[in-house]
């Protein structure tokens, strides 16, 4: 066996007495795509941070092509050939693709940037890896998937031999995910070693060669993907018991039209150039999932229902009464709640404590003559934290310091606290680990069983098939189909989602 491309030995990190990562080994070969998975808190992000230099490991060493990696120095690590593509954008939006790709390393002649050489270099690079980008386009004007490609190209321009990809498909559409996967395979074929971090098992089985599973700060499984089953993966990640429970819950009774009472009725809803002819009924006590590609205008449609985006045709009836959505405040006053997709930018106040975030939507219940009643707030917050199982369960904890899963729980919790009659959720489990996912599903099912009408927009087919009582498919701004979830198979869904309408 040849020497591995990257070899980490005994890499560990502890903060005082708290061990975030027990001494672990990781080997990555040239051209290998290695999945790195585990629940939040499993030590995954600590391992990545050790490799990018964001944290200095307490022990162990990493060899890249036999040479030691300068641990704890992000800049030096990048220069030695280990790059990371983060979930959030790492680009300068007002600069061109070309300048972003060669950021900080434009070729110069007599001290001036040599545009011609820079252009040639960038074009060569893009051609070599088969990435199709306009070097002069402003990055801020590109769609998300293209921006991810710019980031990949940028990493490659820095002669990356190892690419860490942290949930690269988080907010990508299905077709874009496929496109990105092709790029990943192409890179692997060129000998780049890739560490691919994702919560989506579908993706892992589609694109990775091997996987490493972490739990409780240590590596529990390391195997080639064709020698492990999904159930085994889930079991390894969350432990046997939780895995069984979540499977059981998925198969528990589906109620196709809930209690039968129509709560929200949408008739011919449309917005010029965006979506049209959207008609459906949402019943009390059901979970309706709407899936489709990103760009199929699901998000715009639900925002129109909530009042945070306009519509110009059709009507919305709530409990048979006609409504004209105007603003989020209006939507809330009528008992509608919306959990937005991007929790960091649209959902939460990251610099504020859990307590303030959880009462954000219900604040006006907690004051007497304009003065807040702290005791009432505290009672409500602690019961919510308990119900949501937020970790750590401290109301004063800043939300920005929570893991993705716990942030998402707080976000959903702040809407559940209002007990809306209609709750709309946009991609409720993006970037959330399997354990937290199961908990969120349980919360949603409990809400449904209390009689809430739940509308979920999701691109995660596993989620859709697990959670939904009914499934709708949107494509290019139209609702293609709507039927009971029981009996729909995943291949059928895939075919419908991608159909050329």
């Amino acid at each position: 066996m040849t020497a591995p491309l990257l070899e980490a030995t005994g890499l560990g990190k502890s903060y005082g007495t708290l061990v975030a990562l027990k001494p672990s080994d990781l080997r990555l070969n040239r051209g290998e795509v290695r999945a790195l998975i585990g629940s939040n808190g499993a030590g995954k992000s600590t391992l990545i941070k050790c490799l990018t230099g964001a944290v200095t490991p307490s022990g162990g060493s990493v060899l890249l092509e036999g040479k030691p990696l300068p641990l704890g120095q992000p800049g030096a690590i990048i220069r030695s050939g280990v790059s990371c593509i983060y979930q959030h954008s790492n680009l300068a939006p007002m600069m061109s693709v070309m300048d972003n790709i060669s950021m900080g390393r434009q070729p110069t002649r007599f001290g001036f940037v040599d545009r011609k050489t820079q252009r040639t270099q960038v074009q060569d690079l893009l051609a070599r890896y088969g990435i199709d980008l306009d070097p002069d386009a402003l990055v801020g004007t590109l769609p998300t998937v293209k921006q991810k490609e710019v980031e990949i190209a940028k990493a490659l321009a820095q002669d990356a031999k190892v690419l860490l990809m942290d949930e690269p498909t988080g907010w990508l559409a299905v077709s874009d995910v496929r496109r990105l996967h092709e790029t990943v395979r192409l890179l692997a074929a060129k000998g780049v070693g890739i560490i691919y971090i994702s919560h989506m098992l579908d993706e892992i089985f589609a694109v990775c060669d091997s996987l490493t599973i972490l739990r409780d700060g240590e590596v529990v499984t390391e195997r080639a993907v064709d020698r492990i089953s999904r159930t085994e993966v889930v079991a390894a990640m969350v432990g046997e018991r939780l895995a069984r429970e979540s499977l059981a819950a998925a198969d528990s009774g589906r109620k196709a039209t809930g209690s039968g009472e129509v709560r929200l009725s949408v008739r011919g809803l449309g917005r010029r150039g965006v979506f049209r002819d959207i008609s459906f009924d949402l019943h009390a006590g059901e979970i309706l999932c709407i899936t489709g590609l990103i760009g199929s205008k699901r998000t715009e449609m639900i925002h129109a229902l909530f009042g945070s985006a306009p519509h110009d045709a059709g009507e919305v009836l709530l409990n048979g009464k006609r409504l004209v959505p105007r603003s989020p405040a209006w939507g809330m006053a009528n008992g509608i709640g919306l959990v937005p997709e991007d929790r960091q930018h649209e959902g939460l106040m990251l610099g504020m404590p859990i307590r303030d975030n959880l009462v954000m939507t219900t604040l006006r219940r907690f004051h007497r003559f304009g003065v807040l009643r702290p005791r009432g707030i505290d009672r409500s917050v602690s019961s919510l934290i308990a119900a949501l199982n937020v970790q750590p369960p401290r109301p004063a904890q800043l939300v920005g310091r929570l893991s993705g899963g716990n942030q998402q729980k707080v976000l959903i919790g702040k809407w559940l606290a209002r007990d809306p009659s209609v709750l709309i959720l946009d991609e409720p489990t993006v970037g959330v680990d399997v354990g937290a996912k199961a908990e969120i599903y349980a919360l949603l099912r409990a809400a449904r069983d209390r009689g809430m009408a739940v509308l979920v927009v999701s691109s995660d087919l596993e989620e859709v098939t697990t959670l939904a009582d009914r499934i709708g498919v949107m494509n290019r701004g139209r609702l293609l189909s709507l039927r009971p979830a029981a009996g729909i198979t995943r291949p059928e869904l895939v075919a419908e989602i991608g159909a050329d309408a």
Partner: protein
Amino acid sequence: MTGLMTRAAPHALTLCVIAFVMILAVLEPAFLSGSNLIGILRAVSLVGIMALGMTFVIMTGGIDLSVGPVSAIAGLVAYFALVAGHGLVAALLAGAGLGLLIGIANGLLVASLGLPAIIVTLGTLSIVRGSALLLGGPDLHGIRDQAAYSFIGSGAIYGIPVPVVIFLVLAAMAWLLQSRTPFGTLVAAVGDNERAAWLSGLNVTAIKAATYGLCGLLAAIAGMIQSSQVHTASATYGKFGTELDVIAAVVLGGTQLSGGAGSVARTLLGVLFLGLLNNGMNILNLSIDIQLIAKGAIIALALSLAARRTG
């Protein structure tokens, strides 16, 4: 050492205040005399009142540079109302109302049109100053024989100057507003994440306009107190630099210019710190050059200590 620094950091300002008081008390025992301490409060009362409003504006991620001219025009309007014989209450309401209106106009420009606050309020600074000068000219308008109005600035209740009493009452109200009412939380929410606040059903435009309105109102109150204190109304009062003093007090108190969480209580500490600094250097009869250099250095130092907390 580093650990100690990190732990001390949140209290950097408090520690600075204590250290400063101790040093001054040794250098000049008169510093701790009751009359001097009241003098400090009296000196900071106007900047302090403006800083209360500015805290809310800065919590939303905004800034208000126009407080100086707003205070001037409010004093002027109150003066004209008094002279026209409309009575004390009407005069005060006129001045306060104008400040409130200018503030709300600022807020609407910032919030509903999405313009950068620093430029908008720089614009209104110019507009309000020009308007004040058109209204009152460069003259000093002496306020005479208005005992009730003069009492606001020059009177005393149980030996405590009325401006100090007003300042403390307003401070208590602002503190309640910020920490004990929904408004405080909402303002912080808007400053932390505006889009999320909107999607949570908050009326972002109204909240922002309210903070600027409050800031304008408090600037107007400060302006009227000043005109009463000096028995004069003039369009040239609240001159350039007032707004920077006010902002410095708020930021010293730990409210970030980028918005989000903030605290009226800590702003008060910032106000007090600046007041101590000015008073201490005056009482030691330091020359203006040393005063300015020391002031700059101490502000930079105190804040850089506090910055380690977030570090």
